[in-house]
């Protein structure tokens, strides 16, 4: 029968087309994609975590100011809560460095051979989350970074104090797990084979990481100073006993070639440079104390609008004038009001030196010996570590000397000499004295942390120093300082836990709610 033949034909063809999805899996597999990776180089890719921005943290702590309100330049300069200014810490952490570290840890699951790599990642992940908590208060922590591994798309926000408890656990467990006869992590940017000061073997590298971990533990312990002195003292003591950083060689930092890899903030200061100025409190602090670091940080360019074309600006500290905080550009341009008016395409004030401290080849520092030593100075002063004022002074002087030495890593610098350091340490307003110790120590912490806005912002809130005057441009902050940054707007529509998170921090996602250690 003819029709039967047709049915057979149809079925053959049906089989031909319909069943040939057998090779669909192969077709839908990208033959060129990298689907397997060494977790160590994922970690290396995640080590350069976010360090704050000029427009946010450095503006809050009055080291930097953009006095213009020309649209898209509003933010902490005028006490305004602007999404894009609040977000970089968040956006450069969760879907970037945290994602990579979580994935690296997933790849290391069940691997007992690479315990040192795992410990480094745990410590560095803790460092990243410490910055997030310090910046935003409650944040997603336990469920963060698990979109792929556990399908969690809306991570729950965790209590900031609870996160800190777990950070303590992570750092201490990781420190305990280090094994000098274990794996050498060559990829480690801080102390690995290609680091500025490379480690020869696992023993040397682990020693450095233990110092880094304990220095972070010290930082974490000191955060409790306002709310729980006993807890602070216990953790600080544990860190000191474990061994913290003892010289600049221990610093967690990287250098940039200034070409293929650049220090990120340089571009921000170079582009639209007429908007970017050093803030008056920072300039005045250095000027009033004849700080030898000032000439590397500040500069007066003939045209503030074209700093990139002027390689030799005036760096004489006496000629530097910072922009007063909370004054807009219309007023600053008006010499009749007592301001310095305009110069070139900008204002007649000092800027950051884009050829030295803010050069594309300027290094990035996460944790330094200078910071560590200043925290110890405060701890000694408070009696949490031994030595009292005498030891505090030693820690303090060592920190300042170490920070000055670090400038030799910047382009366009000459070493700050011993006599210069000595003279500076004797300056009124610098020289250690028992009465003003906490202010002196934390003012120095503010100076050395001009490289790390997150830390400068956190320590300013914790210590209350330096004694800055609040920006009173408007009354948005009720005459105070920003105590945190707000969550990204995007969280409101993408994370179902957002409303609960806002309720947990006091019912309003604003700049004046406080991180738990800031109460």
């Amino acid at each position, binding site marked *: 029968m003819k029709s039967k033949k*047709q049915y057979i034909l*149809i079925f053959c*063809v049906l089989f031909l*087309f*319909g069943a040939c999805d057998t090779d*669909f899996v192969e077709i*839908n597999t*990208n*033959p060129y994609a*990298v689907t397997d*990776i060494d977790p160590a180089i*994922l970690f290396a890719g995640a080590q350069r975590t976010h360090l704050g921005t000029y427009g946010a943290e450095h503006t809050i702590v009055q080291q930097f100011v953009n006095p213009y309100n*020309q*649209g*898209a330049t509003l933010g902490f300069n005028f006490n305004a809560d602007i*999404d894009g200014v609040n977000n970089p810490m*968040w*956006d450069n952490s*969760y*879907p*970037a460095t*945290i994602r990579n570290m979580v994935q690296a840890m997933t790849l290391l699951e069940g691997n007992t051979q690479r315990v040192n790599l795992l410990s480094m990642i745990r410590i560095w992940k803790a460092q990243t989350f410490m910055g997030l908590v310090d910046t935003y208060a409650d*944040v997603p922590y336990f*469920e963060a*970074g698990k*979109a*792929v591994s556990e399908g969690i*798309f*809306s*991570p729950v926000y965790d209590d900031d104090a609870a996160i800190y408890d777990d950070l303590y656990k992570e750092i201490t467990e990781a420190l305990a797990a280090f094994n000098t006869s274990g794996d050498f992590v060559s990829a480690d*940017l801080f102390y690995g*084979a*290609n*680091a500025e000061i490379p480690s020869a073997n696992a023993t040397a590298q682990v020693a450095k990481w233990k110092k880094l971990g304990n220095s972070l533990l010290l930082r974490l312990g000191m955060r409790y100073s306002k709310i729980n002195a006993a807890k602070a003292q216990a953790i600080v003591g544990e860190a000191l006993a474990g061994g913290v950083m003892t010289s600049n060689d221990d610093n967690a930092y990287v250098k940039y070639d*200034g*070409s*293929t*890899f650049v220090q990120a903030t340089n571009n921000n200061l170079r*582009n*639209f440079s007429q908007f970017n100025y050093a803030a008056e409190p920072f300039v005045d602090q250095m000027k009033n104390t004849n700080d030898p670091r000032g000439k590397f940080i500040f500069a007066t360019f003939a045209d503030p*609008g*074209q700093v*990139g074309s002027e390689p030799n600006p005036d760096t004489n500290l006496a000629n530097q004038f910072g922009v007063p905080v909370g004054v*807009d550009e*219309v007023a600053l*341009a008006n010499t009749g009001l007592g301001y310095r008016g305009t110069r*070139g*395409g*900008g204002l007649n004030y000092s800027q950051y030196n*884009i050829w030295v401290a803010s050069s*594309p*080849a300027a290094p990035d520092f996460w944790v330094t010996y200078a910071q560590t030593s200043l925290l110890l100075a405060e701890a000694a002063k408070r009696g949490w570590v031994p030595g009292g004022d005498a030891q505090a002074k030693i820690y303090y002087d060592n920190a300042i000397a170490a920070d000055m030495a670090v400038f030799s890593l910047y382009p366009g610098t000459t070493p700050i000499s011993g006599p210069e350091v000595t003279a500076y340490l004797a300056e009124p307003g610098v020289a250690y004295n028992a009465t003003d110790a906490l202010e002196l120590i934390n003012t120095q912490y503010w100076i050395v942390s001009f490289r790390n806005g997150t830390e400068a912002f956190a320590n300013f809130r914790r210590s209350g120093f330096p004694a800055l005057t609040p920006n009173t441009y*408007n009354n948005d902050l009720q005459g105070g300082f920003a105590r945190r940054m707000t969550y*990204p707007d*995007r969280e*409101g529509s*993408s*994370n*179902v836990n957002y409303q609960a998170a806002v309720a947990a921090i006091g019912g309003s*996602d604003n700049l004046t709610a406080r991180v738990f250690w800031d109460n």
Partner: protein
Amino acid sequence: MESLEGRVAGLNITPPAAGAGASTQIRLRGQAAFAGANNAPLIVINGLPMDQGARPADGAGQQRDRGDNLQNINPDDIETMTVLKGATAAALYGSRAANGAIIITTKSGQKGQGIGVEFTSSFTSSKALNFLDEIQQTEYGIGQSGAKPLTQGQAQSQGQFGFGARLDGTPVMNFDGVMRPYSANPSMLYDFLQQGTNFTNTIGLSGGHANGSFRVSFSNVDAEGIVPLNEYKKRIFNAGINHDFNKKLKLQLNINYANENNINPPQIGTQGDGPVNFFNRMGVSTPIEAYRDNAKNPVNGAEYKTNGFLGTINNPYYPIQNGQYYKDVRNRFLGTATLRYDITDWLYAQGRFNYDYLNSFSEWDRLSGTGTDNPFQGDGTYKGSYNLLQDISTDINADYLIGGNKQFGKFSVDASFGGNTWRTQWQRMDQSSSNFVVADLYSIANGTIQNQSYGFNRTRVNSLYGWAELGYNGMFYLNLTGRNDWFSVLNPANNSLFYPSVSGSFIFSELLTNQTWLNYGKLRGSWAKVGSSNGVNPYDGLLTYSINPNQFNGQTLATVNGNLAPNPNLQPFVVTEQEIGLEMRMFNNKVLVDLAAFHKVTTDQILNVQISNTSGYPESKQNTASLRNSGLESLIQVTPIETGNFKWVSSWNNTYLATEVLDVGNDTGTLLVLYFNGTGNEFLGELRYTEGMPMNQLYTRTYLRNANGEILVTPSGGLRATDANTPGAELTNGFLPVGSSIPKYTGGWNNTFTYKKLSVGVFIDYKLGGTVLSSTHLNMLRQGHSILSLEGRREGENGLTFPGVYDDGTPNTSVVTNLQGFYANYRNLQIGDPFTYKSDFVKLRSVSLSYNLTDAIRSIGALDFVKGLSVSASARNLAILYKDLPGLDPEAIQSSGDLRAGYENSSLPTARSFNFSLNVKF
């Protein structure tokens, strides 16, 4: 596509004003899926299915429109073009036709016609339409705080502001150090733009004999856009061959080869480069000659700094004069071979092979000195970039069909069964370099940073399908279709989908043969379902890593790739459409009515869902969303006058489209598609899909109002915006819906008058009921260029007291003297009230005139070899009869995509064009 614009009910065509070779937005019965999916109808050329493939200017990612695939077809080669609106098109063409299909058949000669030559020549001239005087202020010049720039430095940092002094004609310092009169130079953009031209010539040769026919044609397009240096050149070769081997075996071959050169498509839609952004955002007191003559800084060769936003407002003369370019060359081959064998007089088998090969090559540079006053990088090398991009793609469709039709008494059966395989492969080679060593040399070899990448993917869709039409007595018809698709991009567990359709028609005029007024009457109804994997890309389910191309101080770095959390569990989404229709021809066919109502629901739409980026990814693809498009289409055509020599045909078509977002797949009920300001390149508002609202909702913050609806101001009289405490805006941080970008009413009124050999067409079209957000308006206000920015500094005014109230309800009495700061807060706070307009328009779209001279010319004895001669002239975009958006054409949005629906920012103005053409047949 312009020939269909406004003429087919349900078809919404929007040609963006984006340059000589720009793409067109085509939507049939609304936008079936959310942005990101392919929402254009399928183009089927002689059976070869091809996506429209629009490559629009989409803001930060792409600021040049690089055309679409329709441009590969020469309109003069088209024999017929049919629009299949319903989802019923999908049984035949599969999921790709979920948005309908446009079926194009190209010419392939006529059997038995002998040899003929046809020549068509056309010339079009176009010029930008200028409405800027409706919004541009010409009272104040460059400067700030009411003062003129005193120094060159001030002129260079304040050029973007029109908050200077009142223009008085006295000499003032300009950015280039030259003193020029402080007076108004309005509409400089229109002095920058030029007349656009387009020459198109087609020659066709056709022939036919008893067993077959052929036609070959060649066309050449040579166009210049209204933006200087924008050129579009195209050559298309087309061949169609029919050959009957014998009575049973027939072959049809179609070949189309297109070579396109798109040179310097204009940069639009974003900040940065591009003339529209520049001229609309610079003060009026510096004349265009200054920008033209002193574009380059004589000291270092970089762009002369004209304004304090240099980098985001860049002088377009600089790249033009110094050799910046963008070249896009595309070579595309389309081939179709169809072999049909008539097994019996009622049964046939057909096999067809379609081959689509595309090789596109782009090359562009950006100069060291473009958008910067300093041509050097921080490391001392030269800024700028050089890029090479090559895409090669092949698209193969092979299908077979077995079909038959037979009459059984009063019953008829027409049934077919077939299968199809669609296989694609795509490769991309991408190279770029930057940080140049030698000045003014843009090449890979000169860059100290060189990047390269290779992209690759393959997809396959296999299908089986069948359909049957059962007829009774030529009066009742029932159509059934079924199709099963298998998609390679989906997980094998979920990759198969069967979808059916059923439709019926009743030709009721067969029962009313005694009613002489009724010539034809048909009632139809249908239900159809279509599946689609549209929105899923190959390898979406895979977690991959990217290795940094450059080592960091000798150390290799890697990161997890991508913004989309891999989801291996996606399934095809489904469009279900119901339609009823009525078609009647009456009164000797002088009145024609065609009505249709449709209801189309898209479910399980595959969508990039925003997830909390604390999960590690900002987005994930999910099968979540659903939406509805429903509408009413009507076409009414009447022939009011028809005498021996004169005929007037008037037709009106209208589509009413209602859309509703049913589900966005998250708990908040609203899905952010794009935060325009968040791209870093745009200014205002958001595009969202919100449950219960029409598609493409534009959101902005608005003035903060009290319970009485009065606008609240700060104690110092400043602006306040809605925030997360505003009712209805809790989840959107103060952003509130201000309207949908999609017009509710789209249509046109066409009149054709024919007198003997002369034919005149007058066409008016309209789109009503949509919303547009204008960043041009925002920028012109905050930078002091719009008439609105005069509030507070008009004659006799010394500051602005904004009409609002304080928190306690008392009227605002504060006087704001810093107007620049006040208006800047519209952008800072994202207040959209003054920039939200209806996108409504009614346009006198075209007037055309054609005259058939065939008889006249043949009457000259020596010229009787001429078989046909006609000439025509037409004018397009003659007038906008009505619009709501001042200063701009509401239709001139920059993007043919869906991501920037309703968002206006630095679009090219619409051009008015005049065309003359000649057609000769020998």
